[in-house]
C-alpha cells in the first residue's frame, strides 16, 4: 500500500472493501491491479462501503463489483453507464463508480459513452482497456489499432482503433484521465481524483491481458524492446496544465481541449498517462436541484412522494 494510505484515518480498513468471493481472473491479469487500486482509492477516501455503488457491464472486467464489498450492480454488456445514471439520479448521496471493458464501453456501449458525457452527472467511469474482448476469448476490441493481430485473431484487424480520450473530449466529459493497470502507485491517485471530481470523470486504464493480448504485454509497456518505458507521465512534464481555470472562458477551454487531444494520440513508442483535461462545470445533479430544490438536501429516493395530492390536476380537466 502506498504511504498515503498509512496516513489516512484508519476508520475503514482495506478489508472493509474486499469480499470473500473467489476472484476468477487469469493469473497475471491486469484487472487485479485495477481492482486493488479501486479498493485502495476508496480506502484513502474513507467512503463508507454502504455509501458506494459499483456498476459494471459484462466481461472479465464486469466481475469487479463482486470483489468489492459495496453495493454493486453487475449489469448488461454495454449498459453500465445508463444504469449508473439511473442509480445516481435516484440517490445522489451514493458514490457511484461505473466500470467495464473497452468492448463494453466503446463498442456496444459507445452510444452511452458519448451521451453520458453530455450530462455531467457526478460519478466516475473507469474503462479496463485491454485491446481485446477477454471473456469471449480474445477478439479485437474497439481500441485495437488497425493492422494488429492478437493471438486468437484469425487475421489482423482492418478497422482503426478509436481514440477514447478524443471522443471523451468531443462528448463533453469534465474530467478525463488515463492510467496503467500495473502502475498502482499512479493509478490510485488518479482514481481518487476522479471520484473527488464533481461531474462525470472518465478514466481509461491500459490493462494487460496476458492470455489474449500478446502485443501490449507487461514487457511492451515497460518498453523492454526499446530500452525505455513506453508510458509517458503527463504530470512529469513541467508545462503540463490540464485544468481549466476559468470555465467561462471558451478560449481557455478550447486551448486545453486541443492540448489534451494532442497528448492523447499514441505513437508506436509513446503513450501518455495521467490527467488530460479537467473543468469544473455545473453538474446535472446541481441543475436538477435547481428545478427541484428539495434535491439539494435529500436524494430523490428520500423525498416524500407517495400519495401526492393530485386534485389540482383533476381540476384543470373539468
Amino acid at each position, binding site marked *: 500500500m502506498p504511504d498515503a494510505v498509512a496516513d489516512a484515518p484508519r476508520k475503514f480498513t482495506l478489508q472493509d472493501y474486499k*469480499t470473500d*468471493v473467489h476472484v476468477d481472473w487469469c493469473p497475471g491479469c491486469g484487472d487485479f491491479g485495477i481492482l486493488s487500486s479501486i479498493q485502495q482509492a476508496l480506502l484513502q477516501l474513507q467512503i*463508507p*462501503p*454502504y*455509501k458506494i*455503488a*459499483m*456498476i459494471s457491464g*459484462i466481461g472479465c472486467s464486469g*466481475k469487479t*463489483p*463482486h470483489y468489492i*464489498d*459495496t*453495493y*454493486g*450492480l*453487475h*449489469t*448488461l454488456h454495454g*449498459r453500465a453507464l*445508463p*444504469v*449508473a*445514471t*439511473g*442509480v445516481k*439520479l*435516484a*440517490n445522489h*448521496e*451514493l458514490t457511484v463508480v461505473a466500470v467495464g471493458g473497452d468492448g463494453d464501453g466503446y463498442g456496444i456501449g459507445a*452510444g*452511452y459513452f*458519448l*451521451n453520458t458525457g453530455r450530462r455531467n452527472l457526478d460519478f466516475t467511469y473507469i474503462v479496463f482497456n485491454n485491446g481485446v474482448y477477454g471473456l469471449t476469448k480474445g477478439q479485437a476490441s474497439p481500441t485495437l489499432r488497425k493492422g494488429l493481430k492478437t493471438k486468437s485473431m484469425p487475421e489482423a484487424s482492418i478497422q482503426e482503433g478509436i481514440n477514447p480520450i478524443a471522443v471523451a473530449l468531443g462528448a463533453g466529459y469534465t474530467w478525463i484521465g488515463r492510467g496503467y493497470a500495473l502502475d498502482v502507485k499512479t493509478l490510485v491517485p488518479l482514481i481518487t481524483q476522479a471520484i473527488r471530481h464533481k461531474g462525470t470523470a472518465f478514466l481509461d486504464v491500459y490493462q494487460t491481458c496476458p492470455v489474449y493480448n500478446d502485443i501490449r504485454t507487461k514487457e511492451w509497456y515497460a518498453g523492454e524492446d526499446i530500452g525505455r518505458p513506453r508510458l509517458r507521465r503527463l504530470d512529469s512534464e513541467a508545462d503540463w496544465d490540464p485544468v481549466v481555470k476559468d470555465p467561462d472562458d471558451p478560449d481557455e477551454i478550447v486551448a486545453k481541449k486541443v492540448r489534451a487531444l494532442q497528448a492523447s494520440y499514441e505513437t508506436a513508442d509513446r503513450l501518455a498517462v495521467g490527467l488530460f483535461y479537467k473543468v469544473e462545470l455545473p453538474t446535472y445533479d446541481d441543475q*436538477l436541484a435547481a*428545478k*427541484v430544490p*428539495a*434535491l439539494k438536501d435529500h*436524494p*430523490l*429516493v428520500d*423525498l416524500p*412522494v*407517495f*400519495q*401526492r395530492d*393530485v386534485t389540482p*390536476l*383533476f381540476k384543470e*380537466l*373539468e
Partner: protein
Amino acid sequence: MIGGPQGGGINSSAELYAKALLRGGLSVFANIELHSNIMGKHSYYRVTAAPVPIRSHVDPVHMLVALDEETLFGDAGERKHYPSHQGHLHQIATGGGVVYDADLKIPAERFERTDIRLHPVPYMEVLEQALTGIGRGGQGRKYVVMRNIVALGASIGLIGYDEELVIEVIRESFKGRKAEAAEMNAAALTAAAAYARSHFPARLERQLRPLPVEQRAQRLLIKGVQAVGIAKIKAGLGLQTYYPISPATDESVYLESKAPDFQMTVIQCEDEIASINMAVGAAHMGVRAATSTAGPGFSLMPEGLGFASITEAPGPVVFLWQRGGPSTGLPTRSEQADLQFALHPGHGDFPHIVIASGDIEEAFADSFESFNWADRYQVPVVVLLDKFLASSFWTIPPIDMSKLVVDRGALYQPTSPDTNGYRRHALTATGISPRALPGTPGGIFSTTSDEHDPQGHITEGVENRIAMMRKRMGKLDVIAREIPESFKFKLAGPKDAELTLISWGSTKGAILDALPALDGRRVNFLHVRLMKPFPAAEIGKILSAAKTTVLIEPNYTGQLGALIREQTGVQADHRVLKYDGRPFSRNEVVEGVEAVLAKNAKEWMVSHA
C-alpha cells in the same frame, strides 16, 4: 367532425368545442386521426356528444366542418396511384350538414349529395367583419389562423349550441398575455355563428343543446396520457425516463410539465435502451421508476426487461402505448398488436406482469397499482395502452381515490451493520426476498444479470440454478393469487348470455356502447385485462360455459385469442378483426358481429372510412 391540414388549427377548435359541450352537461367523446407529418397533411377530429354517457365514436357524421377542400373530397389528386383517403363528404349522414369555405367556390353539383345541407361560409370575410367589430379592421390576413374559429362558430350556429359556453372556454384557454387573442377569437366565433344563423335559417334536424344547469353533474374531460400521468404522480413516481416517440411522448411531456411541482425527475434519454436501463438502476435504489414508449421503443427493451427480472428489481413499470405496427409502421395511428410481444419480451423464462387497460378508469387504477406490484413482487410490469386511449378525450365522473394504498413490499431492516448476514436473493416460501435500499448500512448486496446465488454472486451450480428458477418463476403464482379479480377481467351483461363478446384494451368503449345495438340478442362481454399471469381458470370457466363466442380485436392475428387458447384450450367461434390502423367505431363492432353471425364466418374484417 372538423378536418383540415395539420397545423391548421383543427385541434384547438375541436378541443374548445368538446370542453364547451362538457360544460353544457353533455357526455363527450373526442378522437383525432392524424398523419406522421408536422404540417400540411390531412387530419380530422371527431367530437361525439350525448346527454347520456358515451365512450366511443360512430362513423356517420352529422356536421362536417371543412377547413380545406381535401377534407371534402380526399387527396386522390396528390399522387395518382395511391390516394390516402377519399375525404369525408361521403361519411355525412342523410340530413347532416357541411360547413366549408365559400371562397373555395365549389359548385354544388360537385358534392353529388342532395340529402345533406351545404353551408358555404366566406371564412375570411366573416373574420374581417369580426375584427372590424373590435377595431382591428383590415387585419384579417394577419390572423388568418383564426379561420378555424370561424368555421367552428358557423357550425355552432347551425347546431344551435350555446356559444357563450364556447366563449367561456376560449377565455379560460387564452389567459394573461393572451387575453387579447381571447377576445378576437370570441368575436370571430360570435360573428360566424350569427352569419350561419342569418344565411342558413333552416335549422338542422340534429340540434345540440346544453342540459339545464341543475342537471349538469361534475365531470372531467380527460385523455389517457393525463389519466396515466396523474396516477403515476399519485403513486409516488420518482423517475420517469423516456425517449420521444408518438404516441407515448405526450405522457412524458405532461409529467415534465408537472415535475417541479411534484418533485419528480423526468429525463429524456439518448434511446430506449438507456431509458429502460436507467429506470432499472433507479428501481434498484428504491425509487419508483417508469419509462413510457411505443412499439418501436419497446422492441429495444427486451434486454433491459430480462435484466430487471433476473436481478429482481422492484420494477420498472413500462408504459407501452401501442400504435400501428409492425416496425415504424403507422406512427400516429392506433392498433392493439403488441400483446404477444409484451408477453414474451426477451429470451429465456422470466417473470413479469402484463396488464392492458381498457379505459380511463382502468388506466388510472393499473398505473397506480403497477408500482405496488413492482415493489411487492420485484418484477418489471408492462402496462399496455394505445394511441386511441392516449389521445382521445373521455368524459368521466371524478375518480374515487379514497381506497388507493401504497405498498412498498418487503424491505430489509438490517439488524447489524455486519453485511454478511444479508442475502438479497434469499430463498423464501413466496420467492420474494426483502430488499435493502442501497445506502443502508448492513444492507450491502451486489447482484447480476448472470445466474447468481442468494448473495447475488455468480454461480453456475445446478442446485442453485434450480432453486433460483423456482424462486423467480414461482412469484408468478403468488402474483396470480394476490392480484384481485377486479384487475383480471370484467364480464358485463347477463351470465347466461346466448352471445359472448371477447376483447381487451381500449376497444372496450366501442363494444360496451354497441351492446344495446346488438338488438334482441342476450349478449354479454368479457373484457380481459391481466394478461400475465393469466387468469386461466376463471376465463376458461366463463368461456367453456359460453354459448357463442365472438373475439373482437384491432390486430391481424387475434393476439388475445391466441393467448386464451394457449391458456385455456378454448378457441372463439368467430373473430371480428380490424387492422387498418384505426380504432373500432361503435357501428363497426355491431356490423362485424352481425356479419360473422349472419354469415356464420370464422372471421370478418371491418373497416370504415
